[in-house]
C-alpha cells in the first residue's frame, strides 16, 4: 500500500493537530442549528478511527466492521429500553465490553486469513449479525427498530435534549478520549509493530514478533472503540434500527475512510466530515441525484490523488513548499 508510514519517532503534537478541536468547539458556539449533524460526524469519526487502526495501521481488510458498531448500538439500546439501565457511562462500558468480546471471538477466526478471503469472512460475520438482530424481535424490535430508549442526564445534570447540545459535547468528549488513546497507541512500540506487520509480516515473524497476538489485540481493541461509537449513536438518537448492521454501513465507512486517507490518523477525521456534509448538502439540494455527486467525488479523488484527501493536501503543501 502506498501511503505514508504512520510511525513517527517523535510524538510531539504538531500545531495543526489542535485544529480539529478548535473547529469542533467553534461549531458548537457558532452553528447551534447544526449540532445534530455535528454529533453524527463525530460519531462516525470515532468509528472511522477504529477502522483506521486495523485497516490503515495493521493492514486488516474488513467489510464487516459495522458488526461491532451495531452490537454496541444494540447493547446500549437494549440495556435502556428492556433493562432500564439508563446511565450513559454504564451503557458505554457494556457496549465496549460486548463488542470487544465479539471482536476477540471473530478475530481468532478471521485473522488467520488474508486478502479477499479475509474480506469475505468479515462480511459474512456482519451479515449473520444483521440476520440475528432481525430475527430476535422481542429483544431488538426487529425491523421496526428499538424505541423507548432513554438516556439519563450525564453526571445527573446534562440532559440529552432536542437541540442536541449535550449530545454534541458528549460525542466530542468521547472522540477526544478515543483520539488520545489511539494516538498514544500508534506512536508506541506496539504501533510500530503494527506497521511492521502491515508492511512485511513475514519479516515480523522472522524477527520473532508475536504477529497473530498483536493482530488479535488490535482487532479486539478496534472492535471496542467501534462498539463505543455505536453506543454513541444510540445515545444521541435514542433509537436503534437494523441499519446499523450489515454490509451497507461497513461499506460506507470504508468509503469515508479511504476518502480521508487510510493510515493517517486524521484521515479518519477528514473523511467522515467531508462525506457526511456532502451527503447532507447534496441530498437536500438534489434529493434524487446526490448519489451521482458522491460517486463523481470518489472517482476524482482516486484518479487525481492517491492517499485520499489528506494525500491531495500533502501534495499541495509539498508543491507550495517546493516553490517557496
Amino acid at each position: 500500500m502506498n501511503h505514508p508510514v504512520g510511525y513517527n519517532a517523535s510524538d510531539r503534537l504538531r500545531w495543526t493537530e489542535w485544529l480539529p478541536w478548535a473547529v469542533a468547539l467553534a461549531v458548537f458556539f457558532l452553528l447551534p442549528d447544526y449540532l445534530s449533524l455535528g454529533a453524527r460526524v463525530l460519531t462516525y469519526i470515532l468509528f472511522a478511527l477504529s477502522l483506521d487502526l486495523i485497516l490503515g495501521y495493521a493492514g486488516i481488510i474488513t467489510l464487516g466492521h459495522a458488526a461491532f458498531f451495531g452490537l454496541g448500538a444494540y447493547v446500549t439500546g437494549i440495556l435502556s429500553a428492556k433493562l432500564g439501565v439508563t446511565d450513559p457511562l454504564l451503557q458505554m462500558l457494556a457496549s465496549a465490553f460486548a463488542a470487544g468480546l465479539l471482536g476477540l471471538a471473530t478475530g481468532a477466526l478471521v485473522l488467520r486469513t488474508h486478502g479477499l478471503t479475509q474480506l469475505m469472512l468479515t462480511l459474512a460475520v456482519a451479515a449473520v449479525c444483521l440476520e440475528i438482530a432481525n430475527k430476535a424481535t422481542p429483544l431488538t424490535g426487529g425491523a421496526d427498530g428499538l424505541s423507548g430508549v432513554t438516556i439519563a442526564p450525564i453526571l445527573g445534570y446534562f440532559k440529552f435534549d432536542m437541540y442536541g447540545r449535550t449530545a454534541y459535547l458528549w460525542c466530542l468528549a468521547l472522540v477526544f478520549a478515543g483520539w488520545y488513546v489511539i494516538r498514544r497507541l500508534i506512536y508506541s512500540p506496539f504501533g510500530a509493530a503494527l506497521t511492521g506487520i502491515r508492511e512485511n509480516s513475514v519479516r515480523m515473524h522472522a524477527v520473532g514478533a508475536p504477529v497473530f497476538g498483536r493482530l488479535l489485540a488490535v482487532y479486539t481493541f478496534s472492535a471496542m472503540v467501534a462498539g463505543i461509537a455505536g453506543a454513541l449513536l444510540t445515545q444521541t438518537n435514542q433509537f436503534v434500527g437494523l441499519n446499523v448492521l450489515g454490509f451497507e454501513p461497513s461499506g460506507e465507512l470504508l468509503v469515508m475512510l479511504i476518502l480521508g486517507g487510510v493510515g493517517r490518523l486524521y484521515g479518519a477525521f477528514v473523511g467522515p466530515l467531508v462525506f457526511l456534509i456532502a451527503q447532507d448538502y447534496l441530498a437536500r439540494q438534489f434529493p434524487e441525484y446526490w448519489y451521482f455527486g458522491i460517486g463523481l467525488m470518489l472517482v476524482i479523488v482516486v484518479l487525481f490523488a492517491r492517499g485520499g484527501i489528506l494525500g491531495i493536501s500533502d501534495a499541495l503543501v509539498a508543491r507550495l513548499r517546493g516553490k517557496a
Partner: protein
Amino acid sequence: MEAFLSSLVSVAFHGVAYGMILYVISVGLSVTMGLMGFTNLAHGVFAMAGGYILVTSLSRFNLPFPLALALSFLVVAAASVILERLLYSRLYGASELEQVLFTIGLIFMSVALARLIYGTLQAPVVLPDYLKGQFALLGRDFPAYRVFLILFSAGMIGVLWFGVERTLWGAMVRAAVDNRAMAQAIGINTKRLFTITFAVGSGLAGLGGALGADIIAIQPTYPFEQLVYFLIVVSVGGLGSLRGPFIAALLIGITDTACKYWVPQFGAFFIYAATIGLLLWRPMGLFGKRA
C-alpha cells in the same frame, strides 16, 4: 419416499438453475480479479447494464430474444473497453483500497444514471412465448425458462472452457495469470490481453445480468444488492480460475435451495454460514491460484 424423491429432484433442479445464474454473473469477475488483480467491485454495474439492454431491446425495439441477449454481451463488452482504456487502466498499479474506492464511486454514479434513465421501478422482462410456462420431462413439470437457463449456461461454460483451455488466447491468459512478468518477457502484449480479457469478463457479466433478469430483478440498486453474492462465489471458488467459481456456484446454489426448502427458518443464515465454513476450510478458495 415418493414424495421425498420428488422433493430431491425439485431441489436439485432449482439449485442447479440458481447456481448457474450465480455462476454466469460472477465468472467474469473471477477472470478480471484473478488475471488483472483488479478489485472490481463495480462488476454488478456491467451485469445491470446487460439487463437494461435486454429489457430495452425487448420492450422498446421488439427485437427477438436471442438478438437481445447477444446485444447485452456485445454492447457491454464494447463499453467496458472504453471504460478500461479511459479509467481502469490508470489504476492498475494502485492499492487495493484505491481500486475499491474507485469502483464504489463507479457504482454510485451508475446507480444514479440508471435511475435517471429508467426510473426507480424494476425493469419488466417480457419473455418470448417459447420460454414461458412449464416444460414437461419424465412426468414432472419444470419451469421452461429455468430449463433454458441451465442448458444455455452449460453451453456457455463449454465455450468458455474451450476458449481458455484450447485456444491461443486462453493459453496467453493462463500464462499471464500464472506469471505476468514472465509472460511479458516472452513477448505477450499483456496490455492488449488485459483489455480483451476485461471486455470478455464484462461482456459475460452483461450476459449474466440479462439471462438472470427474469429472476433477479433489474433496478438501479442492483450493483449494491448483488455484490455480496458474486463476491461469495468468486472468493469461495478461488480467483483466477474458471472451474472454481463453477463448483462454488453449484454448491452454493444447491445447498442454499436445499436449506430454504427443508429448513426455511434458517434460510438467510445459510449462505453466510456456508461461506464462513468453506473459506475457513479452504482459505484460497476451492481452486484458487492466489488469495
